[in-house]
């Protein structure tokens, strides 16, 4: 089964479970994959129809089903490009004459369809690495190779879209701004409005398309930046703290969006994102790089084995309990390697022979009050506490 067929089955299940919100988004993704104006029109017609007939379930299901079939038929014959490596960094470093901080050496490979998460405490080089990868900073050492075609550095940076944490203000109507981006990127006049409408709907911005920048919350500003990014068709999207201003639900949604965008079978892109939301990022990313004082530590990286944390695989549990450190120490005696109290939570390290089930058994046996627990043995969270 091809990547497209897998994704299509997943999309079909949204229809079966009547999850129209997700279904709409994914249908827009498929529509954009077609790069065909008649599909742009059909999906836009559906979106307009939905505005008036949200509660007409039967008709809605029928229309979605019909469009989905048409999209499937069209895209089944469309060739799926082979995924290529986009950028390869070998021992890149960035140091400054005037500052004591330096980044690197960093090694990474990023391919089409991959998400690379950058985590680490503030001031440890996440933004610097993003700026290095997008060409805003130059590497003082090492090799940074982009494997796609570009004539000059301007053209390279055209294909690397960097969205900083603080985005610049947009002036005028949001819709016009996006239309300007679309026409600058070569969308034909007849498809411009249709594509912009689709992308706006894709990011749940239909209600806000004629708003002014100052009237938008920071979360919606980020979404508009993402909308613009989609129109720019980048090879690599580099985005600094995209989750910072989003509520927990919006964070999940945006990360799911990233996943769908990056893993499009027909238009795959590479995404590098930095975040403090470790668990969310880890769930979404194919690679995670933890940065501590500018140095790289990888989590389940496939290609940079030399940077893998070479530690024995202990069981590390993060949990919250009303008990004191002494009481817990006693309760886990004999099994514990260490127990640290870290900002309201306990981090308990056990030998590799222990499993989560063993931990839960002790908790139950000793009737230890437990508010929350998480196995962080395979999470970069452990780097934060080590």
């Amino acid at each position, binding site marked *: 089964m091809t990547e497209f067929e897998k994704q299509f089955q997943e999309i079909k299940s949204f229809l079966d479970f009547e999850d129209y919100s997700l279904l709409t988004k994914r249908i827009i993704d498929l529509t954009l994959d077609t790069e065909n104006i008649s599909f742009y029109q059909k999906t836009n017609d559906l979106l307009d129809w939905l505005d008036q007939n949200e509660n007409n379930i039967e008709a809605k299901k029928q229309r979605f089903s019909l469009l989905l079939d048409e999209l499937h038929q069209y895209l089944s014959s469309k060739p799926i490009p082979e995924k290529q490596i986009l950028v390869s960094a070998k021992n890149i470093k960035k140091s400054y004459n005037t500052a004591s901080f330096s980044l690197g050496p960093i090694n990474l490979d990023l391919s089409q369809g991959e998400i690379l998460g950058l985590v680490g405490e503030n001031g440890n080089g996440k933004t610097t690495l993003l700026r290095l990868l997008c*060409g*805003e*900073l*130059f590497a003082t050492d090492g090799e940074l190779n982009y494997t796609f075609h570009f004539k*000059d*550095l*301007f*053209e*390279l*940076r*055209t294909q*690397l879209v960097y969205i900083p944490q603080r985005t610049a203000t947009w*002036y*005028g109507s949001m819709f*016009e*701004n996006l*239309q*300007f*981006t679309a*026409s*600058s*990127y*070569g969308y034909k*006049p007849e498809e*411009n*409005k249709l594509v912009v409408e689709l992308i706006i709907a894709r990011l749940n911005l239909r209600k806000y398309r004629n708003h002014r920048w100052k009237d938008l919350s920071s979360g919606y500003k980020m979404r508009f930046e993402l909308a613009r990014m989609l129109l*720019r068709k980048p090879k690599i999207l580099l985005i600094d703290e995209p989750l910072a201003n989003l509520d927990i639900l919006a964070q999940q949604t945006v990360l799911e969006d990233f996943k769908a965008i990056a893993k499009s079978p027909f238009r795959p892109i590479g995404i590098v994102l930095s975040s403090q939301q470790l668990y969310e990022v880890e769930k979404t990313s194919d690679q995670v790089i933890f940065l501590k004082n500018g140095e790289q530590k990888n989590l389940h990286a496939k290609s940079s084995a030399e940077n893998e944390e070479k530690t024995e695989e202990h069981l590390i549990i993060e949990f919250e309990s009303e008990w004191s450190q002494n009481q817990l120490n006693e309760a886990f005696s004999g099994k514990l390697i260490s127990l640290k109290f870290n900002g309201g939570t306990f981090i308990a390290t056990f030998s590799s022979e222990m499993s989560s089930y063993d931990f839960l058994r002790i908790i139950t046996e000793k009737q230890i009050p437990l508010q929350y627990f998480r196995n962080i043995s395979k999470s970069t969270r452990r780097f934060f506490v080590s």
Partner: protein
Amino acid sequence: MFKNIQQKLLLNHPLLWNSKVIVFATLALFFHIIFFLLGFSKGEIDFTDSNNYYSYGTDSFTTISVSVLITILMFIIWLVYYSRNNAFKSFYPKNKLSLFKEWLLILLFCTLNATYAVSFFYAKDLRARNYYSEEEISKRLETITLSSLFVEGAFKESNFTIEEINGKSVRVERDSFKYANRNYSLKSLLNKQIRSFNYFTGLKDSLIELKAKRWLVENKKDSVQWLFGEFFKLSKEHNLTSNITPEKWTELIYDYPEFTKYITVGRTHTENDPIYNYYDGVDNNYDYAVETVDSPENAAIDTLSKTIKIVNGQEFVYSKYYVPYNALAKSYGKISNAYENPDVDFDFILSFIYLSIGLSLAVFSFKVTSGKNWLIAFVSLGVVGIITGIFSVIIGGSVTFPIICMLVFLSLLLHFVIILKIKESKGISGITLSQILWIMPGFIPLLYFLVFEIIKETSGYNDYVYIYNSKAKQFPQVEWMEQHFHDAITLNILFVFIFLLIISIQIKKWKGIAEA
């Protein structure tokens, strides 16, 4: 309408939409039309105005002030809209010539927005030129010029000459002069000067004078009579009055062969020679107080031709006979000026082109670098300018300042080229790029000035002292340089365009270089 146009531009020509040039250029054209119409209306000539003074009025000052105000306002509003989206800064795709096209659009708007006064002054002159065909104007100006010999006016030859006697220059008094192999009294009409219009060259003036004086020498009274007839035709066309007829005029002045016994014909009916007149206006309700015909020959007033009138107790001298010469000379003088000395001449246009280029480069440098870089570039260039100025004064010599300016330009250019070659970090090149763009239009003129100064120095022009009666030394190179200064300044505009074409391609490459 603008909304629809903008929407079409947004979909088809994003650069035009972003630059907002179509909307603002249309607005600018609208203002041009208003200024043109105002100028056309102000260019109306009052053919009856015979005052000797020219009223400059406040039109020019007001026009220039209002146009500057509109220019500034339009410029600021346009800049606000134009700086809303910076596709270049956001790394939107651009082809090789995109930046050059963008500069051309900026230049187009800056030119249109900076030249409202040009439309006004051009229309003013155009109105004056459009009263009659050029052929007709030439004919009429010749009639007025010929007639000037027969109205009150200055004499040509003075009452003495310098003659060389025994090797010495001696002043010799005289009461006659030689013309066409005959001696004439200094008071003869043959000694009168013609009134020249700048429409005619000096040579043409001489030919007109020769023509009139030949009529007198050759006793062609009918030609003189014909001339007065033509003059009166003009007067009648403009509803100007006279208290004589062409025949009477001929009778008053025609005194063949000496042309000394003639009555001076006044140039205007309001013309007066006030004895103590500080007033502009003349009250027509005057009383004839004195009217003497015979007066001593050396009296201050030629009472054969003049009369004294007392108006409200004030004495005025009037011509007894007058033709509306002043009114025609003044009005046709304006038409002549509109042809030969218009407000909008090549220098005027050139200065506006340079102003527009300067403004466009200021905006362009802001667009391709950043506000911060622009400001630092401005301040640092100002500081360098002041230091260079002081240094040049201390060192002395006219070439110090241009040499330093050119060296600064070449150094900045070299720095930019190195940054482009190394491709590591832009560093301060955003600042230096702005300065390159600002100094560049002055490079060729500075180079020209420098070469000119060197030629003057090496050819001995600066040390040459002209000795009276000796043959003047020729400096063909210096002359050539002087004559071709305008050409150099004009060609420099072409250089600016070529430079912008080349550097805009390089700026696109430069933009891709890392910031730090």
